């Protein structure tokens, strides 16, 4: 409660929320002034999203709420559902994390924005459409290029998020709540969307609550920060001062995590023999046929990519979504056949291997995937999941050996041997990525490929996983191929980095050289767009 103006726009007093019998938010007090940007920061599960839902009065049915939420002095907590319906949208705008699910896939974007307007104001369809067009222009979707007649699937992720913002601000609400609005976006797009939100807040005098787990984003755009830890606000204050003088141990840990670099010895490049060589990979996908006469030219997702990973080395591949990095990885892992090029693993042709030879070679390369929730069959126990790659061995070990090696791996990745009998849903996102790493280690591969493996994790957990990876690489002499859109992550772990754009490698070299003196314009743009804590 430090710098809020005399009559704050939004005032939360002693808010407590429990779901069932579990208290989630404890005695939370906040204030947001007009034109002010408040960052609400915390790990997943800290109650950030629930705070946003409490303000919107959209809490789940089995929850109980005590305390007061006032918007412009008006009590929201006592309002009925029908009264709240007129407040939402008109006085409170909300932007969600995943823009695709917030939009109606079958409705033109102009109509979706117009619908919000017509729900709250008695205006004609033509007036609403006109206002919708203006709002879309305001958020950077002018009539010329992204006409109001487009459907959500025709837009990129960043453009969709702009539409969602347009819907939220169409009625010029005094307060906008944005829940992780840029977490699902690339660095470049993230910078644009953040700048847009900042401009809207400052030019319209709109209060903005920015819910995020990313301290770098907070430092970039917010005026004040509230740090949420286990349902309580542990620190609150003006952003610049607060980040300099964090008191609470959790806040310090978060800040340290945002700045940290995993400790490892000097980069070892070039000297060791190559374990993975990728030569001139080309991958194409057929495009939807628009006329019967001729087939359209296929989409070239990967266009002549070559890269090398030496033993014990960590190689990063960065690029925005759509740059072809995931397609490249699927080809490298022999999950897809490529249109052209070779993958050579430990000196043998991997891309054209079949049958027994393919199974033998697969032992040399394993993978950790992006989604910690999707990479495990929910019906399998952890032991069975980790031991799944044993299928690659000609003579799988007996049950006792299997149990012993799974237990050993669980301890190696920082879990306990007893976890083997549990199921994936019992673990947090970070713990699941540890299980995924254990699964990748069981065949003692030479290379592990990571597809955005830490993108879905909180800053603190992400740092822990990156440190674990650095340790494992040192101890086991593993090589990593680390694909990510997150420059900070790649910078903190990779010895060498390849930058990918439109299916091509535009620049590569030692990581520090790439980041300190980038040559290619695209690399420079990427680096400039990434929020970095000074």
């Amino acid at each position, binding site marked *: 409660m430090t710098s809020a103006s005399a009559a704050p726009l939004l005032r939360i007093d002693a808010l407590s929320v429990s779901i069932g019998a579990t208290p989630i938010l404890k005695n939370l007090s906040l204030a947001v002034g007009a034109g002010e940007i408040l960052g609400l920061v915390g790990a997943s599960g800290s109650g950030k999203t629930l705070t946003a839902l409490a303000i919107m009065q959209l809490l789940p*049915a089995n929850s109980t709420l005590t305390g007061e939420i006032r918007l412009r002095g008006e009590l929201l907590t006592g309002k009925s559902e029908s009264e709240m319906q007129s407040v939402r949208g008109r006085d409170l705008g909300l932007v969600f994390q995943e823009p695709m699910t917030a939009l109606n896939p079958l409705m033109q974007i102009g109509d979706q924005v117009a619908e919000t307007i017509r729900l709250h104001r008695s205006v004609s369809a033509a007036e609403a459409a006109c206002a919708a067009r203006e709002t879309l222009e305001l958020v950077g979707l002018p009539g010329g290029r992204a006409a109001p007649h487009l459907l959500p699937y025709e837009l990129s992720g960043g453009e969709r998020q702009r539409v969602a913002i347009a819907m939220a601000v169409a009625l010029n609400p005094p307060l906008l709540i944005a829940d992780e609005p840029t977490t699902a976006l690339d660095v470049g797009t993230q910078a644009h969307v953040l700048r847009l939100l900042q401009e809207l807040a400052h030019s319209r005098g709109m209060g903005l609550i920015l819910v995020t787990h990313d301290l770098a984003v907070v430092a970039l755009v917010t005026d004040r920060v509230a740090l949420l830890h286990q349902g309580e606000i542990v620190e609150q204050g003006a952003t610049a001062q607060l980040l300099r003088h964090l008191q609470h141990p959790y806040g310090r840990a978060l800040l340290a995590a945002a700045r940290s670099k995993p400790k490892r010895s000097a980069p070892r490049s070039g000297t060791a023999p190559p374990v993975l060589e990728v030569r001139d990979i080309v991958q194409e996908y057929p495009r939807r046929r628009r006329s019967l006469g001729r087939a359209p030219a296929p989409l070239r997702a990967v266009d002549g990519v070559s890269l090398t990973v030496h033993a014990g080395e960590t190689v990063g591949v960065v690029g925005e979504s759509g740059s072809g990095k995931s397609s490249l990885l699927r080809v490298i892992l022999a999950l897809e056949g490529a249109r052209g090029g070779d993958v050579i693993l430990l000196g043998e042709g991997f891309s054209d291997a079949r049958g027994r030879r393919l199974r033998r070679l697969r032992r040399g390369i394993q993978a950790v995937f992006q989604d910690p929730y999707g990479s495990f*069959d929910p019906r399998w126990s952890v032991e069975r999941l980790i031991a799944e790659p044993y299928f690659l061995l000609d003579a799988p070990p007996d049950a006792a050996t299997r149990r012993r090696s799974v237990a050993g791996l669980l301890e190696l990745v920082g879990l306990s041997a007893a976890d083997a009998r549990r199921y994936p849903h019992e673990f947090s996102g970070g713990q699941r990525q540890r299980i995924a790493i254990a699964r990748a280690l069981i065949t003692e591969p030479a290379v592990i490929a990571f597809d955005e493996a830490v993108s879905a994790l909180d800053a603190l957990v992400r740092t822990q996983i990156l440190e674990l990876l650095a340790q494992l690489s040192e101890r086991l002499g593993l090589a990593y191929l680390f694909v990510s859109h997150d420059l900070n992550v790649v910078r903190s772990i990779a010895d060498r980095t390849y930058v990918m754009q439109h299916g091509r490698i535009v620049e590569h070299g030692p990581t520090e050289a790439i980041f300190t003196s980038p040559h290619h314009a695209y690399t420079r743009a990427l680096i400039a767009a990434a929020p970095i804590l000074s």
Partner: protein
Amino acid sequence: MSIRRDRPRRFGLIAGAALTAFFVAVAVAGQFWTPYDPGAMSIMDRLEAPNLRHWFGTDQLGRDVLSQLLAGAKTSVGVALLSVIIGALVGVPLGLMAAARRGAVDELIMRGNDLIFAFPSLLLAILITAAFGPGAVNAIIAIGIFNIPVFARVTRGGALQLWTRDFSSAARVAGKGPVRISLEHVLPNMVGLLIVQATIQFSLGVMAEAGLSYVGLGAQPPTPSWGRMLNEAQTLTALSPTLALFPGLAVLLFVLGLNLLGDGLRRRQERSE
């Protein structure tokens, strides 16, 4: 203070499960005990209205309607169940194969499906029974054939979605092939979906059996059947209106119960996802 947005609609699920369990129990019980022999005629007692001796009355040959209903439940449940099993046994593997192989195999299976879908179902059932003769077994086959594309399509849809999940890629990195992944990862994760579909197909099967028997192509006398009871009652509606009432109610309530159960299960499935 709380806001109730999605009040759980469990009443339908419970009512559906109760109705379904009741009729299945009746079908089983009807095998061992009926108040009278369902085939025993007694001309003296014909076309009686419901009374204390014959709760649901008697038909034109003096047979006890309640006993016939109990015995006929077996035909309904049996024909519907076996046709669902046929549909699932053929359709599920086809759907799994289409999703795992994609490409030409997928096209072949799905266009074959469309071919069966394109036929009016009753017409094909009549064709089959006309070619092989009427009877419960041929009714099962006819209805079963129509269940195949339904199961194939539902399985393919669910399987395609599971194939995009990272655990399918992880299994491939672990060297497993499409058949093994389909059986180990894909099928077990869509059991719920298939149970829901089976319930819905079961209710359609009960209706189809009643329909075929009604037009004389299903179970033949003396096998008791609700559809044939309706057929025989039709000409006597003026004389004895209650005669059509009870078999009609039996079909209605059983199908209603199965639909409520299927809907409730589907909703629960969607919530859990």
